[in-house]
């Protein structure tokens, strides 16, 4: 039986896959970054379809910022003249294709053959989800959340430290 949810799921799934494919096919950097944004938004939509509303909205919001930053970096490094030159920056093509296909086949095999037990249809309301997720974060997995926070902090500091140019320290 095909439900709306299934249809939506398939549509957005295909959109995500197409955008994912576009990322590596386009020649222009910005276009690949934004297509990645597109696939991420599709994934966010998938979350919404699967009624994980908070996660969906969060995904859409977060990815927007991140992908735009990525776009900026792409331009900085690639000196891409606006997607006009069609250069192909990939190597060991067939190995990666083989690997990609092999992994996909394996995972789909696992998915198809494993029996997943009963499918739950009912899901708590979004408001309830938010509350429970909040509880979860601040009660049981407070530890994980805190460590995530700390890791972000360290990540920031590390990246800044790495990114700072050595030249300036030498001149002083």
């Amino acid at each position, binding site marked *: 039986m095909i*439900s709306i949810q299934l249809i939506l799921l*398939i549509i957005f*799934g295909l959109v*995500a896959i197409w955008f*994912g*494919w576009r*990322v*590596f096919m386009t020649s222009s*950097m910005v276009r*690949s*970054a934004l297509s*990645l944004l597109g*696939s991420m938004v599709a*994934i966010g939509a*998938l979350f919404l379809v*699967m009624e*994980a509303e908070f*996660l969906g909205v*969060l*995904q859409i919001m*977060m990815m927007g910022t991140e992908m735009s*930053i*990525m776009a900026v*970096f*792409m331009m*900085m*490094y*690639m000196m891409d003249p606006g997607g006009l030159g069609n250069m192909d*920056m*990939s*190597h060991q093509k067939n*190995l*990666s294709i083989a*690997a*990609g296909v092999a992994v*996909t086949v394996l*995972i*789909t095999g696992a*998915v*198809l053959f494993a029996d*997943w*037990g009963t*499918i*739950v249809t009912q899901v708590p309301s979004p408001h309830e*989800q938010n509350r*429970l*997720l909040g509880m979860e*974060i601040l009660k*049981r*997995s407070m530890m*994980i959340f805190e460590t*995530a926070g700390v*890791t*972000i902090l360290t*990540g*920031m500091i*590390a*990246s*800044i430290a*790495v990114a700072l140019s050595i030249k300036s320290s030498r001149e002083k």
Partner: protein
Amino acid sequence: MELLITALIIAAILFGIGLYGALSQTNLVMIMMGIELMLGAAMVNLVAFWRYLHPEAFSIQMFVLVAMTVMALEGAVGFAIATQRFRTSGSVEMEESAELKG
């Protein structure tokens, strides 16, 4: 049952594409994009499991949040390294950075 399977298959395909991207691209940023895509596929998997198997276990959603932080962090650090690479060797292509060999 089909819902779960379709979601998982979509995630698997996304993962495959991401993997292909990561392996095939020469550019560091492109490799990072591949990795981001793979992480996105993983998140789809997680949400699918949460939605269809254990809606009451919110640790899965917690895990998705952690995955998001991982994506963000990975991006940040990757760009830092990329800037250093760019600053030292002028380009971010992976071929030129072979001098790290043992």
